[in-house]
Each structure stands twice: as structure tokens, then as C-alpha cells.
């Protein structure tokens, strides 16, 4: 049993849709006869790839300008869902995805189902799956408010796969005046420098945590990552402490990673962190506390001092 139409909140840039957007498109087409997309920006640039992943029409918001996405996208979406009557609207659990879904929830007076990793259609209605308590349990929730169901999904919950479709049609959607609520303006955009493999799609991730002891010791994480062609990540503890930028954070807040190999160095494994990495295929953990929860998910756990094990490992890799 499927829904008639799922509308996807499509995010991306001039190079095309984000990975998360394509993951959601792939899932949505198994749940609905028709998948459409609403793009707050870059609608034209995303049309080919969205079409290749099963989206029939991209509704491209015009005139966002320097306004914030959430409030303006929601104002336009409220009218758009009245006009097109989708059965569900899917959002990625991103900064703009959250803002837009939250604003739309108020405008349309209906709940948002958040932090989901799965979805199915039961008796014609949407049932979503959310991991709770650090992923030790899953809760399945049926949406009982009137359609469309608003649902948000965590990254890497589904595999993106092309459907073989042609480019999606693009239709313009005019901006709607969001009133005084829309008065915030973006006056500058700053991209942090990125080099080497990115956390989101690296095959190997090396992460460091509080067990490193001091900020300088994070250089061992970078060095090990460099030797393995890996991306470097971090626990929330050392991001909050200001050792490394937020962009490196792996966890409930931060990035969800599912690499082939995840190497956790001096990370105890708080549920906040486990949620973001326990989907990794292989997990190696180095921690001096044998009781650390990280060992509960490790395929290879080393009970030892990161300041001894990591330098020895780095030397061994260099001498190969």
C-alpha cells in the first residue's frame, strides 16, 4: 500500500542536491506513487539528479534573496500544500530542514515527527521509526493528524539509488510575504576551509575525544587520519571545549557517519556520540577505561593509553 504523493523538502547547492535529499527521494518513491520536491533554492540545478532519483516535479521557490530559508520556505509551503495536497512532506534533519518544518508545523497546526531513521505506510497512514536512548530501542509512531504528515529524517537512514528517470520538470513558486517574522537578513556567508576526505562520505573516520587529554594531542588524530586517507572527527566533549570546530562533531548533534571503518580514540562512547557512529561497518576503539561504553559497540577494542597506542600505530603505518 502506498500514498498518492510525497513532497520532499529538497536541499542542495549549485552542484546539485545533497546526499540526504537523494536518500529521502529514494525512500519516498517506495512509499508513494508520485514524489515531488520543493526547493527553497537551486531548484533548476537539482532537477536532473532529483529526476534521476524518482522526483517528477521540482517546485522552485523564487525570490528568497537574503532571507532565512525556514520562515520563507514555510510561508510558501503552507500555500503549496493546500494547492497540491501531498499526503506527507519529508524533511532532512538539517538546520534549514528543522527551521522549515517547525515553522510549517505552526502555520498548518500539525505535529512534526522528528529524528526518524525509517518509514512505512500502514493502513494508509505514515508510521515513522525513531531510535531512542542512544539507539538501544526504536519507537514506531503513527501520524494521526490530518494530511500531510510532516516528518524529518536523520542523514544516512536510507541508501540513495537512482531510479533511471529523466530530469524532473521545474515549476516556479512565488515567494509569500512572511511579514515581520521574515525580517532577519543574511548579510554574509562564510564557508570553513575543507581539505581531505569529508566526514559525510569518507570510507575511514578517525575521531578523538576527551581521553586525548589536551587540545594539542588532537594532532595525533589528524596524523593517523592522514596516513589512512581518512576524515577526522570528534566527540561533542572536545567540540564544546573548543579544541576543534563544530564541523568535526560526530553524534546526535553533529554528523552521522557510516564509514567502513571508524576508529574512536579516547572516546568513552556517550549515547550522544554512539547515535552518530554505531552504524559504521567496523569499529575500533582505544580507551584506557575497560568499562567505557564504546567497547560495547567495538569490533576491536584496545584497553590502553591513547598516548602510547596511537604513536605506536602511527609509527607502524609510516614504516610500511
Amino acid at each position, binding site marked *: 500500500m502506498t500514498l498518492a504523493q510525497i513532497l520532499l523538502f529538497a536541499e542542495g547547492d549549485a552542484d546539485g542536491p545533497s546526499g540526504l535529499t537523494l536518500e529521502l527521494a529514494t525512500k519516498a518513491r517506495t512509499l508513494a506513487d508520485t514524489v515531488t520536491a520543493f526547493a527553497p533554492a537551486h531548484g533548476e540545478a537539482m532537477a536532473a539528479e532529483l529526476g534521476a532519483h524518482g522526483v517528477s516535479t521540482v517546485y522552485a521557490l523564487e525570490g528568497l534573496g537574503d532571507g532565512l530559508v525556514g520562515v520563507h520556505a514555510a510561508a510558501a509551503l503552507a500555500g503549496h500544500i493546500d494547492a497540491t495536497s501531498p499526503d506527507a512532506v519529508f524533511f532532512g534533519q538539517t538546520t534549514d530542514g528543522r527551521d522549515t518544518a517547525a515553522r510549517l508545523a505552526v502555520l498548518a497546526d500539525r505535529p512534526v515527527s522528528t529524528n526518524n531513521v525509517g518509514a512505512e505506510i500502514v493502513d494508509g497512514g505514515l508510521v515513522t521509526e525513531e531510535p531512542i536512548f542512544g539507539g538501544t530501542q*526504536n519507537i*514506531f*509512531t503513527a501520524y494521526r493528524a490530518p494530511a500531510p504528515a510532516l516528518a524529518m529524517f536523520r542523514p544516512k537512514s536510507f541508501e540513495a539509488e537512482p531510479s533511471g528517470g529523466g530530469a524532473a520538470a521545474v515549476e516556479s513558486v512565488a515567494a509569500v510575504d512572511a511579514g515581520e517574522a521574515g525580517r532577519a537578513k*543574511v548579510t554574509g556567508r562564510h564557508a*570553513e576551509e575543507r581539505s581531505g576526505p569529508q566526514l559525510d562520505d569518507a570510507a575511514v573516520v578517525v575521531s578523538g575525544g576527551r581521553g586525548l587529554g589536551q587540545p594539542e594531542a588532537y594532532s595525533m588524530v589528524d596524523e593517523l587520519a592522514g596516513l*589512512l586517507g581518512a576524515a577526522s572527527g570528534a566527540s561533542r566533549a572536545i567540540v564544546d571545549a573548543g579544541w576543534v570546530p563544530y564541523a568535526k562533531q560526530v553524534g546526535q548533534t553533529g554528523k552521522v557517519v557510516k564509514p567502513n571503518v571508524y576508529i574512536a580514540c579516547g572516546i568513552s562512547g556517550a549515547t550522544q556520540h554512539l547515535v552518530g557512529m554505531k552504524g559504521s561497518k567496523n569499529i575500533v576503539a582505544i580507551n584506557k577505561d575497560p568499562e567505557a561504553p564504546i567497547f560495547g559497540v567495538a569490533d576491536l577494542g*584496545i*584497553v590502553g593509553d591513547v598516548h*602510547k597506542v596511537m604513536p605506536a600505530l602511527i609509527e607502524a603505518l609510516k614504516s610500511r
Partner: protein
Amino acid sequence: MKVVVCVKQIPDPAIPGELNPETNTLARDDKLILDESDSYGVEMALQLVEAAGGGEVSLVSMAPRSETSGLRTALAMGADDAVLISDDALAGSDALGTAKVLGAAIAELEADLVLAGVESSDGYTGTVPEMIAGVMGLPSITFAKQIEIADGVANVQRQTEAGYDQVECALPAVVSVTAGVVEPRYPSFKGIMAAKKKPVDSKDLAALGIDAAAVGVAGARQETVEVTDAPEREAGEIITDEGDAHANIVEFLTELKVI
């Protein structure tokens, strides 16, 4: 300048959480504490009021059983007063129901700025601050890592997937503060003593003029159909380092053809 800070009082995260078997909502039977995520909003508010040369920091919280333990912690940090909304009909409220209640309570306070944490540590929907702005018809800037206020205008660095955006907005506005961007102060002994005497204004739903059907489990309009245990990962090999455990990692990576 008057800053209102939304604070959530949550079960101690150090104690494993559990669901209420009847409602499948988070059990909140024990003492609640200040959500660490909200301590950043409180600290940011205190710093902004200090920078403005004076003003008031008021807290707003919705909690069961008129719980004030977490509020007292934030008052001990230096907040001036608090509004607490407590009502049996609020049990099981979702993010939207919570935002309706908090928004109604904040509207009575005539704030220049409303601060909140980006997301709570227990529910972490990350939607409540934006919903409060929606309910109140205010602009909002989420995921703030830096806030400057001058001449009634907020200049905010908003974290993005790529880096950050500089955002400008005339007040009043709702801003959600990212964890870790300021260093929350520890309450002093004097602060803790003073907090016991600071005013906490308790309200129920009727006082806010909110219909009980719009909040709580009924207002949430979502139904738990099943709770399952997630499959556990198979136990791996645990080795105590005797000086050569790095060789086990090399071997493991070699088997996986990573090196």
C-alpha cells in the same frame, strides 16, 4: 534590555532513561535538573545583559509537578526571576504543544530577546525555538554561535552545514544558542543562596488561556504503535594493551584491506 531564556528541566542524563509503559512517553518521575544544553542560553543572556550595561534575565520553563530544581540552578547562575508552567494536562506534549505554551507565557513578558538552546538533551527535536517564534509571529535565528546586540539590532553568526552565515535582525527575535559557544558559569555559594529567594511565578494552562485539548497527548496527535529493542552489535574482541596492541589494529585494518 529584557532577555527571556527558555529552560528545560530534564531527568538526569547520567541515569538510563525509560519510557512510561502506559503512554510510551519519557518517564519523568525522578527529580529533574537543568538541561546542560540550556545552560548556554542562560550564560549568553547574562553576558548580553552585562554588555548592554544592565537589564533583566527571566526564565520560562514547562515542567511536571511544579519542578523548580533546574530553574534554581539557572537562577543561581544569575537569572533574575522565572515563570513555571505546570499542569497535569501537559503530560505527553510534543514540540508544537510545548511551543504554544512557552510562546503564550513569553508573550506576557515583553522581551527584547528570547533565547533557547538549539535542542534539548532528552527530546532533541531541535524544533521548539523556531516554533515559539512561529507562535509569537517573531523572526528567529537558530544555531547561533555568536550574538552581538547594538541599537536594538541583533547580529548573529548562524552555524550552517558549510560554516556560518552572518545574520542581522531587528529585535524582538528568538535566537537558539548552540552548545559550547560560551562557557556557562558555575553558580557561586552566594548565587545559590540568593536563588532560593528569587521569584518563581507558577502558572497553569487556564492562566495562559490555552485549551487543554491543544496540548498534552491529545494535542500531539501521534500514536506509539510499537517499541522494539534495537539489534545489538555482536561483541568484538577486547585486548588490553601490553605495548604491542597497535599491531592488532594494523592486522585488523589489513584484513579489511584499508591498508
